[in-house]
């Protein structure tokens, strides 16, 4: 059957239309990373240190881009997901290790996403026994329509809802000169360098680059069947996603900074939102709570899909959103089980959420360095990719530097979680 296309007359129209057709995976992977945990971390950064940590986001922008660009390139070159490539090129042991670790850390992260949904909607007067099941059903309905494009359009719309963060940041009237200064130049917060400051910086790094992102974008690019010629547009998509995500994270810090200025002490964004209501108004209060739900929904759908794609690839099942539920039962069952089980766990009374959060950090510390090492080695695999797709020498210098830094930070974060006495 001949391919169906759209006729355009001008070169710029051709470029624009091609970009719009390719656009999606880069924005989604980046913005979904601003999930409930990220909202909490960025708002804590603003709430504890005002604008002093804004510069970290500027440093993280190129790191996010370079890592995810490699993922997009590998996905386009091979048409396969990251888990499948690790299995094929590094063998069953490393394949199983990566897959099991990914599934565990993803599942634990999903529990935190549903906990955030429960927390935020409870603050808005909706009980967890309504909020959590409704969210879970909605998240399942999003993917079972048998259309990748339908899912992608819904998720892009959810990503764009995050533009509201800029409205919230504007409403709390930050000192824009100070915002610009702290974004461009690191400044020392009152109290100097403390272990708390160091670990908050590490937490910001950890929340901005998450292991599931590597698996998700590569599978998503393969699912969308991006072609070799689409690489430049996939890079642009990834760059736009990275800039948007970092800008949204900055807006979250500014809202947290408003709490800092008003000496609000909080443990989670819902507490901050409730405290800010009387000072900043209902727009800020309800906005933070609803955006927290949006962040958790985005995170849940992307993370669950990362798990379902990875498991489906390795099991050699049909693993595509293009398929109907009965055509890819294992793939959809994985997604549904992830969502439903995480939602059910959150409804257990006195669930030890702190233990779940610590476990996420520990398992992420295991999976992120290994996944990123495999990515870098695959991108230097000339036998597989040929000269066209492998990293250039300058790519390798940048990426090995990023990997060394991520190894060190992951080790430090895990050590802080598991051996807290070392740092007291």
């Amino acid at each position, binding site marked *: 059957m001949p391919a169906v*296309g759209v*006729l355009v007359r001008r070169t710029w129209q051709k470029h624009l239309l091609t970009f719009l057709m390719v656009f999606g995976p880069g924005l989604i992977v980046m913005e979904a990373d601003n999930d409930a945990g990220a909202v909490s971390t960025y708002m804590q950064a603003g709430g504890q240190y005002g604008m002093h940590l804004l510069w970290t986001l500027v440093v993280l922008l190129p790191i996010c881009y370079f890592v995810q660009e490699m993922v997009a390139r590998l996905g386009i070159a091979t048409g396969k997901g990251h888990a499948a490539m690790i299995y094929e090129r590094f063998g069953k042991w490393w394949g199983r290790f990566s897959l099991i670790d990914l599934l565990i850390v993803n599942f634990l992260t999903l529990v935190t996403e549903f906990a955030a949904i429960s927390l935020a909607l409870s603050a808005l007067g909706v009980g967890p026994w309504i909020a959590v099941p409704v969210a879970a059903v909605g998240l399942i309905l999003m993917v079972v329509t048998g259309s990748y494009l339908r899912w992608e359009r819904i998720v892009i719309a959810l990503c764009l809802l995050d533009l509201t963060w800029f409205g919230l940041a504007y409403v709390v009237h930050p000192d824009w000169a100070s915002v610009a200064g702290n974004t461009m130049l690191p400044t020392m917060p009152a109290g100097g360098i403390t272990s708390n400051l160091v670990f908050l910086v590490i937490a910001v790094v950890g929340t901005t680059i998450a292991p599931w992102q590597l698996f998700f974008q590569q599978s998503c690019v393969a699912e969308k069947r991006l072609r070799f010629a*689409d690489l430049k*547009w996939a890079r642009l998509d990834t760059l736009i996603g990275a800039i948007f995500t970092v800008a949204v994270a900055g807006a979250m810090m500014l809202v947290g900074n408003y709490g800092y200025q008003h000496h609000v002490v909080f443990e989670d964004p819902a507490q901050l939102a409730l405290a800010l209501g009387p000072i900043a108004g209902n727009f800020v209060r309800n906005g933070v709570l609803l955006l927290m739900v949006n962040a958790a929904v985005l995170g849940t759908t992307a993370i669950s899909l990362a798990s379902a794609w990875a498991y489906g690839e390795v099991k050699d099942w049909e693993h595509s959103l293009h398929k109907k539920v009965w055509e890819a039962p294992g793939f959809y069952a994985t997604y549904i089980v992830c969502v439903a089980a995480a939602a059910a766990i959150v409804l257990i009374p006195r669930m030890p959420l702190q233990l779940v959060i610590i476990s996420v950090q520990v398992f992420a510390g*295991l999976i992120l*360095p290994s996944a990123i090492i495999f990515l870098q080695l695959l991108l230097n695999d000339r*036998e597989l990719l040929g000269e066209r797709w492998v990293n250039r020498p300058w790519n390798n210098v940048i990426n090995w530097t990023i990997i060394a830094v991520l190894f060190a930070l992951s080790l430090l974060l895990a050590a802080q*979680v598991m051996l807290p006495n070392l740092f007291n």
Partner: protein
Amino acid sequence: MATMQNSFDPQYYCVIHPLDDAPEEKCSAEGLGHIAMTPTVRLSLKVLRGYLILMSIMLLYHVLDLAGIVHQLR
């Protein structure tokens, strides 16, 4: 192929959605076996194993600490 020039009218471009386009022959690992063990690959995997062993020791210590066994040994 992202776009192609219309053969009947060179002034028009036909832009095809990736999902509607003909599949490309991708780079495949079929028949290649495992990745070649170059010095870089070998060193990277050694460093990764070392890192994972270190993390496992820390995790074991943490579990023993939580169980109160470390305190008893002291």
